[in-house]
């Protein structure tokens, strides 16, 4: 049983530690420092958050998405066909992102996250997951002013993001995680979703993970098991029905077990974590479970995020003793 994270990590710590990235972005925005200097601070903070994950005992870490303004614009800004519009709420959170607007044919131009992956991997003693926002979610959280239908946009994005997946594979990423929270809100789109992900992942040799959050997979299981991914990540905090849903048919993939609430500061006890793992351990064997928070950790203050991870690791150790 390995521990991992879903992706994002809080960008700044609290006092007395300095909020270096916040300061650097502010200075960059008013022209006081250049892109190189901003990049240098992003590098330092990326190393720092990898170290925090490692210190907490996480087996497979992420770069914390330190360079990402949000999951959508990180890709949309670097592809052709998008403009970036006003702030809009991210699902039911009190967090906002700038809405990408599709105004022309979407086109991948050059690697977006590959260099970030290389940097993180070179500075991490543990394996690093590469992260890609999936074509369905990127389309669902954008406004489409170009394609004749939403489906056309999703399929076009799948075709283009495929280039990113291949670039990450070429950069050496052994695990590539595709994030698709939006499918939980429009489950009737599963045929389109499936077609898009088949297209995107065809021939990809790296271990591919599909992660969802903020809900359950009622209506998507078991056909989600047919998608070309070796692991499926589920949110058991906002989607407690997942416990029961995954019992309805064989779970023939690895499971990303999102059991630590990444949207609340209250720390789970070791007993609670052990119990959550026990509830799925007869459906998925422990060696096929990745234990992780319920979603990205950026909804928490930095110190709470690290405490959550340390708790989670203690809980997993407890479960390993109990379950053998």
């Amino acid at each position, binding site marked *: 049983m390995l521990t991992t994270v879903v992706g994002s990590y*809080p960008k700044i710590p609290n006092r007395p530690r300095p909020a270096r990235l*916040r300061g650097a972005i502010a200075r960059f925005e008013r022209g006081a420092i250049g892109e190189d200097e901003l990049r240098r601070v992003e590098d330092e903070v990326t190393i720092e958050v990898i170290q925090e994950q490692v210190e907490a005992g996480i087996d497979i870490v992420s770069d914390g998405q330190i360079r990402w*303004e949000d999951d959508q614009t990180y890709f949309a800004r670097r592809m052709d066909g998008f403009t970036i519009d006003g702030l809009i709420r991210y*699902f039911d959170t*009190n967090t906002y992102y700038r809405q990408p607007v599709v105004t022309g044919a979407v086109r991948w131009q050059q690697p977006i996250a590959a260099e970030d992956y290389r940097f993180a991997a070179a500075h991490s003693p543990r394996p690093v997951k590469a992260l890609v926002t999936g074509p369905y979610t990127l389309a669902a959280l954008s406004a489409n002013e170009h394609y004749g239908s939403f489906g056309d946009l999703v399929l076009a994005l799948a075709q283009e993001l495929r280039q990113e997946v291949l670039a990450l594979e070429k950069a050496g990423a052994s695990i590539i995680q595709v994030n698709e929270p939006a499918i939980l809100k429009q489950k009737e789109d599963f045929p389109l979703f499936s077609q898009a992900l088949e297209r995107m992942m065809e021939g990809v040799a790296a271990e591919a993970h599909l992660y969802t959050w903020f809900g359950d997979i009622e209506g998507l299981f078991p056909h989600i098991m047919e998608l070309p991914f070796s692991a499926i990540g589920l949110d058991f905090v906002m989607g407690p029905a997942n416990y029961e849903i995954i019992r309805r048919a064989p779970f023939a993939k690895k499971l990303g077990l999102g059991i630590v609430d990444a949207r609340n*500061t209250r720390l789970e006890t070791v007993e609670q974590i052990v119990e959550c793992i026990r509830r799925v351990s007869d459906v998925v064997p422990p060696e096929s479970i990745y234990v992780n928070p319920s979603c990205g950790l950026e909804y*928490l*203050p930095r*110190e709470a995020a690290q405490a959550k991870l340390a708790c989670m690791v203690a809980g997993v150790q407890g479960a390993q003793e109990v379950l053998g």
Partner: protein
Amino acid sequence: MSKGLLTTTVGSFPKPDYLAQARNQFSLGKIDRQELAALERQATAEVIGLQEEIGLDILVDGEMERGDMVAYFAELLSESMAIGGLVRSYGNRYYRKPIIIGKLHWQGPMTVEMWRYAQGLTTKPVKGMLTGPYTMVDWSFDEHYESRREAVLDMARVVHQEAVELEKAGARYIQVDEPAASSRPEEMELVAQGLAVVTEGLKAKTITHMCYGDFASVFDQIARLPVDQLDIETANSDYDLLEMFRHHRFDKEVALGVVDVHDHRVETVEEVKEGIRRGLEVLPPERLYIDPDCGLKTRTWEEAAAKLRVMVQAVREVRRELGIEG
């Protein structure tokens, strides 16, 4: 007052530069609480003066003493809430997200003093402004309660007590904002239960403000919310929410947002009149109030004033057309 199309605002006004600077100085410990409070009062008087000069009917104190609409109350509920670490809101913006750490209870008046001061400056009614229980809970971490429902209902008792105090002080309008409600329409029943506790037994006119959301599926619940007036964001969504009123029974008052608070551009009088006319297609003027989409605090003082002037001018022209001038 006119017999219809009364004008108001949603609550917050932009803070004058001197107050923004003073708040910063205060947080750095360079000025004391008293110095800051004096400037808050000065700014409040300016906000009241501006609204009177523009000719609004129902005023607000502008929330000069508040930063974040949740943290302001959380800091005063110090026995059951704490202010946590920084959480990113968007871009490079962060806020301190409150944490519920104990059983919520009212500790004393939180808004009455500033309301009373503002009301003392004008003969027009000033609205009492409160953050609703659902939003208070949804925008805080919760380390105490076992369920959101318990937390919302306890918070509702706190907000109710504050509303009672405002009413005792003389407030005739009490607005309970629930911007978080629109993000989770499936919890509208819980929003309603919270508001029912807040408004129980109040004689003041009660209002709730909600941000734009997918309300079509829960319109029946919204129509039954235990408040007298629903204040909605409509200008920035091309008035599509008005369709709901066309197809459903609705006997509350509506405050219709007719200027977009997230846009620097000042609307034309003609545009705003068009918005008001669209409201009048589904509601009679005596049940239709006119205001901006949301709080004005993100605009500059000049933008806010310009938008309100256009709004009041548009209302005057429509009232004249309808023959309901005051």
